[in-house]
């Protein structure tokens, strides 16, 4: 019996290969992650000195080479808020339909395919659609409304997928128990399913905020402009946006001090990653809290 467990020569060879394999894969992982960490380090190193209260909360001056980024920051927040107003109700409704009402048939499969495709359509194509549909056809002009609706459609799949996942995480047995008592589908959703899925939906919404605030191409021709001497007064006004501002200060303005684009990039990436981390933290908190 004892000999069975002794390493044979073949096993030695295999174990050696396994170690090599593991080392190779580990190095690949490191090679994928380290450059990015290095890049982030550079962004922080070069961008941090510009970041100040004034940088965040004052207007750009002197052809955007000096001053702050407040109109762009505010513009991004406005764009995201209006986009959320449109996409969250629609996305949650779509997810409720798919998870709670939709039968398992060809039509539902087409809806799912449409969602996957909506997520896969290039952002510049969304921009073309926003221009053709919202700016021109619906006569919203280049405005916050047109840009936000474009963003909303583009990020709709994020809300749908996250919401559907958290709805489906609620066990079927709860629904059946509730239906058995005579609850309608909607009563069951409102009293049992949604309350237990709401945190999961929130993680999806935060994720969408992160996605939306970083997008550039979809807003370029629909509502965001390079420079605006005043703040937007309503949803039919144009606006500056952080992501587009980064593009502008790094490519379009001659004599730009090197540190400014780094500062803008740092603010943008901090905003996006903070939202993402929040979403991840919420998800981990949720995982730790057992309700059944």
């Amino acid at each position, binding site marked *: 019996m004892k000999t069975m467990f002794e390493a044979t020569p073949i096993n030695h060879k*295999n*174990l050696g290969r*396994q170690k090599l394999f*593991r080392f*190779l894969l580990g190095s*690949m*992982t490191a*090679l994928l*992650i380290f450059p*990015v960490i290095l*890049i982030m380090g*550079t*962004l922080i190193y070069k961008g941090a000195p510009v970041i100040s209260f004034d940088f965040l909360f004052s207007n750009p001056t002197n052809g955007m080479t000096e001053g702050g980024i407040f109109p762009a920051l505010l513009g991004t927040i406005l764009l995201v808020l209006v986009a959320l107003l449109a996409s969250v109700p629609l*996305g949650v*409704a*779509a997810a*409720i*339909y*798919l998870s*709670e*009402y939709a039968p398992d048939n060809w039509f539902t499969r087409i*809806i799912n*395919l*449409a969602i996957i*495709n*909506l997520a*896969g359509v*290039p*952002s*510049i*194509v*969304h*921009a*073309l*659609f926003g221009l*053709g549909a919202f700016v021109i056809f619906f006569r919203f002009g280049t405005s916050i409304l047109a840009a936000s609706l474009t963003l909303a459609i583009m990020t*709709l799949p994020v809300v*749908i997928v996250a919401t559907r996942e958290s709805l489906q995480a609620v066990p079927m047995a709860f629904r059946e128990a509730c239906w058995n008592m005579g609850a*309608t*589908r*909607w*009563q069951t*959703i409102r009293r049992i399913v949604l309350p237990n899925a709401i945190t999961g939906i929130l993680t999806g919404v935060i994720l969408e905020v992160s996605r939306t*605030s*970083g*997008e*550039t*191409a979809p807003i*370029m*021709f629909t509502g965001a402009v390079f420079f605006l001497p005043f703040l937007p007064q309503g949803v039919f006004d144009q606006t500056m946006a952080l992501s587009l501002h*980064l593009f502008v200060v*790094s*490519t379009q303005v001659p004599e730009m001090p*090197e540190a400014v*684009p780094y500062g803008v*990039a740092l603010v*943008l990436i901090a905003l*996006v*990653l903070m939202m*993402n981390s929040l979403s991840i933290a919420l998800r981990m908190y949720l995982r730790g809290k057992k309700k059944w």
Partner: protein
Amino acid sequence: MKKQTLAATKVSDFDRLNRDWYIDKTVQALVFIGGISAIIFIIGIFVFITKEGFGFLVGDFSFKEFFFSPNWRPTSENRATYGILALVAGTASVTGLAMLVAIPFSLGTAIFIAEFATGKTREFLKITVELLAAIPSVVWGFIGLAIMNPLIIDIFDVPVGLNVLNAGIILGLMAAPIMTSIAEDALKAVPDRYREAAEAMGATRWQVIYKVVLPAAKNGLLGAVLLGVGRGFGETMAVLMATGHAINIPTSVFDSVRALTATIAAELGETAVGSPHYQALFTIGNSLFIITFIINLIADLVVRGVRKG
């Protein structure tokens, strides 16, 4: 007798269509609108970009010139030409190089995370990958412009650092995290009993992965690669900023190129609504839409194949 009348009242009662029944039906109708919205939007995108580009399709459009001429001169005074071959070559070279970078690294990382890493390391790697996937494309473009550009000039001693190499690496780094998480999902979907059965027969970890896990996850991994291709193909801001934006059929990785998406982003703002140039840009957009649609369709079919198996 009393019992009977009681029963009689109950009969009429339970089948009455009450308020809750109507509310339920209303909600069902409302959420159905949400459900079909995705279909409406996909159709809407196709309809509107076709509509905006229609004048070009029936006018100046020539199939042969559009797809096979490398001359994209929409603003030429004498004779405007609308050939996208060079732009296709730009997109293809950058996406191709990006995949060369991203496929091995993302699959390797996915295997490492799914099969080797444990506990805290695993959690850390997964979160890092997720955060990497969240970095906006305009930031990647800026990185290509401000960090990679001088680096490439220094290392390779070339005059311009904004080229296929730069954009390819940037795009590879962008696509890799997404491909990693989809590939990891595919690996995780392989039931543990396969692994256990193979290990019980004395196979080592790498044998299990090589002979059992990878074949079983084949379709999911292919789906991950296809989605990565789709993403690289449709990426706009990063390639606009890192390719050098020169119309060129590249002969080496140090050549500057221009991508289809970037062309739209760069030129649309300068065109008059309804002009042939404007319509030609929408036609490019339409081609992008159709191609990504096909890629996504194939990826979906491939991944669905793995779920059925």
